[in-house]
């Protein structure tokens, strides 16, 4: 028990907060609780996916601050792809593809060319804002909406069933992705090697692991998750694309990644925590319990980010080799 506490302090606190929160909601009334939880989860989904992009990259030793741009371009590609071709599927594929393409760009510049990783990320963000604003067209609509899928049995769970298990494809997939990625990272060969190249690439190199190739592949594939986050925003959460639709979620996600100690499950819990905070604030506002200007409410996630980072700082440790380009033979 003590060991569990020592190793997973953040996770334990988060879970406790979430559970207590749920009970509070329960007493607020079932419908109210459900709607707040739904709003929290809707806020959390893109944050989780984006945070996982960061987790995979940094665990492999590559800092990705271009997640915001990856999401933005993906949201754009997904929406206009679907709108112009009249096919939701093509939209989704274009969104995922765009995320992966930018992941590949970051991987190539950061890992192969050994460009400064921060600069490479900034380039992605600037390019994304420019491209999406320039090609933006008004008056497009999606050819349809995503189906709502229900998971048998799970959907009947009290409170959480409807919120988490009767949902659009991206929201459902996110749950699966978190669990699978957590498993891959901590239980499989790929995970062990990924953690090794992010902590001490020279050691991995001498153990016969191709560090460069593995970083290229991981960072590129992580782009798929950014693609999913973008497509979720423009196709599932809103069915519209606006300029700046990502609203800095890509940066918020980095804070969540840190709060989540670079662990998928913990990052998901952290994102949910942010979602709750947002939902509570909106609810209080709507109920006129407190009279806080909307603008102030909107700053909540960012204020929370600051607090969270201050709390997490010193308690969690980043992968030791993140941000450092690997050069073979310099052991």
């Amino acid at each position, binding site marked *: 028990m003590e060991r569990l506490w020592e190793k997973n302090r953040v996770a334990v606190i988060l879970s406790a907060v979430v559970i207590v929160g749920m009970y509070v909601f329960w007493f607020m009334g079932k419908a109210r609780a459900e709607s707040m939880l739904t709003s929290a989860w809707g806020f959390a989904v893109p944050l989780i996916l984006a945070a996982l992009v960061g987790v995979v990259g940094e665990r492999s030793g590559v800092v990705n601050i271009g997640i915001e741009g990856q999401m933005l371009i993906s949201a754009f590609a997904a929406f206009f792809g679907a709108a112009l071709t009249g096919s939701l599927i093509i939209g989704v594929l274009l969104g995922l593809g765009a995320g992966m393409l930018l992941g590949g760009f970051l991987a190539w510049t950061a890992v192969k060319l050994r460009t400064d990783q921060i600069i490479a990320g900034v380039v992605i963000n600037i390019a994304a804002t420019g491209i999406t604003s320039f090609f933006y067209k008004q008056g497009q609509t999606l050819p349809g909406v995503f189906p709502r899928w229900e998971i048998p049995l799970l959907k009947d769970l009290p409170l959480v069933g409807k919120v988490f298990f009767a949902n659009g494809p991206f929201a459902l997939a996110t749950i699966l992705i978190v669990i699978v990625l957590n498993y891959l990272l901590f239980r499989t060969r790929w995970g062990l090697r990924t953690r090794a190249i992010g*902590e001490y690439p*020279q*050691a991995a190199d001498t*153990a*016969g692991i191709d560090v460069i190739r593995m970083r290229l592949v991981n960072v590129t594939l992580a782009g798929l998750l950014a693609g999913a986050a973008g497509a979720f925003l423009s196709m599932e959460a809103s069915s519209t694309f606006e300029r700046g639709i990502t609203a800095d979620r890509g940066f918020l996600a980095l804070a969540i990644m840190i709060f989540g100690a670079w662990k998928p499950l913990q990052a998901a819990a952290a994102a949910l925590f942010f979602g709750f905070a947002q939902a509570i604030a909106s609810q209080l506002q709507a109920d006129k319990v407190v009279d806080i200007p909307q603008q102030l409410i909107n700053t909540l996630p960012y204020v929370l980010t600051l607090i969270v980072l201050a709390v997490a700082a010193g308690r969690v440790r980043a992968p030791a080799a993140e941000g450092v380009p690997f050069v073979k033979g310099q*052991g």
Partner: protein
Amino acid sequence: MSEVLLELDGVTKWFGPVKANTDISMKVNRGEIIALLGENGAGKSTLVKQIFGLITPDSGTITVKGDPTRIKDPRDAIGRGIGMVHQHFQLVPVMTVTENIILGFEPVKGLNLDLDSARTMVVEASDRYGLEVDPDAAIEDLPVGTQQRVEILKALSKKVDLLILDEPTAVLTPQETDELLGVMKALAADGTSIVFITHKLREVLAVADRVYVLRQGRVVGEVATKDTDQAGLATMMVGRAVVLQVDKDEATPADEVLSVRDLVVQDDRKLPAVNGMNLTVRAGEIVGLAGVEGNGQRELVEAIAGMRKVVSGSVHLGTEDVTGKSPHHIHAAGVGHVPEDREKHGLVGGYSIADNLVLNRFDEPEFANRGVRNFGAIDANAEAYVKEFDIRTSGIHATAGSLSGGNKQKVVVAREMSAEPRLLIAAQPTRGVDVGSIEFIHSRIVDARDKGAAVLLVSAELDEILSLSDRIVVVHGGHAVAEMPGAGANRQEIGRLMAGGGH
């Protein structure tokens, strides 16, 4: 009769303008232990890294078991039966012993890592070679000696015909070293060939069959150990006869410079490491602290240098009480410190040699004018010290990290002496340093003494303590247990005291 396992022919390697290996040819037979000897920077690590596929020769061939095709990468080398223990541990600190040992060759069950069978494998190997490790311990929690065992087990966990050990004993205690030498002999008896890099001539003579001596990237000699002795090897290494005994005049101790009273200091685990220590060092004498490592020497030095909190007791420099003062203050009060861990506390690896040489004085008027650095003076200072201390480098603007161990140490020693300190603390000043540099560093320490500095020498090498010290203080359990004049000190007697056998 004996099979040639490894053959190098004309291996040459450049690093930019530096020719690290020149036309190196050598042979290793099956079951043979070969020692590679050479000063720091002679090119030993470079040579073995090529055998392990970490870097590729610019010309020449490496033939392993009759196969001369290029060794592509470490995986290829491992596949050919080559294992290597690196000079700098190649272990992931946050991972467990088992995870580190299987990395790259992980057993799996379906998709899952098969950690259970991996652990069994580690335990078996650990038993077979008599290398005791806890398979579930995290590397970062282990002392260096144990990490070394993990490195060796990692290499041996694959099928190895050729084991390369790059300065494995540099960080080991005498007991751990003997243990390792025993393992090496057993492996060789089983038919494993070993290439062993070390600076310690005693170890070479104890285990190796043949020795190759490298100097400035070339093989300058090859000799069977049965045909040579320590003096012979040392001469081959540096190209001239080495004085292993230090030449020095009688000390003329003057005023008390350092005085430590009833000092208590905790180690990283918050356990008392220094326990009521009393010590004085006078101007013009070298006091050697003899003791088995881990008896509070490190914590004592760090406390004196201001790097560690003092629980109780006092440290005086002359008449000034410096207990609990900052390292900067203590340096300004005239203390030079050659730290035990030069990589961590002695140098900034990414800075140039020139910058490292003024690291403690960069803000003094000599090197900076109202916060603007005087690069002319900094470079001139560096050129002078590189020359005086014979620091082997491609230039004063090369990073300190690119230097070999002995040359790094020379940079630290040069810098710490440059301010002409009242008190010089030298902690393990020649650890992992080649014979030529050892001699040089020793003579500089004696020079400092002759100029009137008080010198506190801490060393795990009893020979070093015996040959340098004017006075010897034996520590055990965090305090001084005996004191004697350096001249005529009895090695057996000190050994007994170090082991805790008091009167």
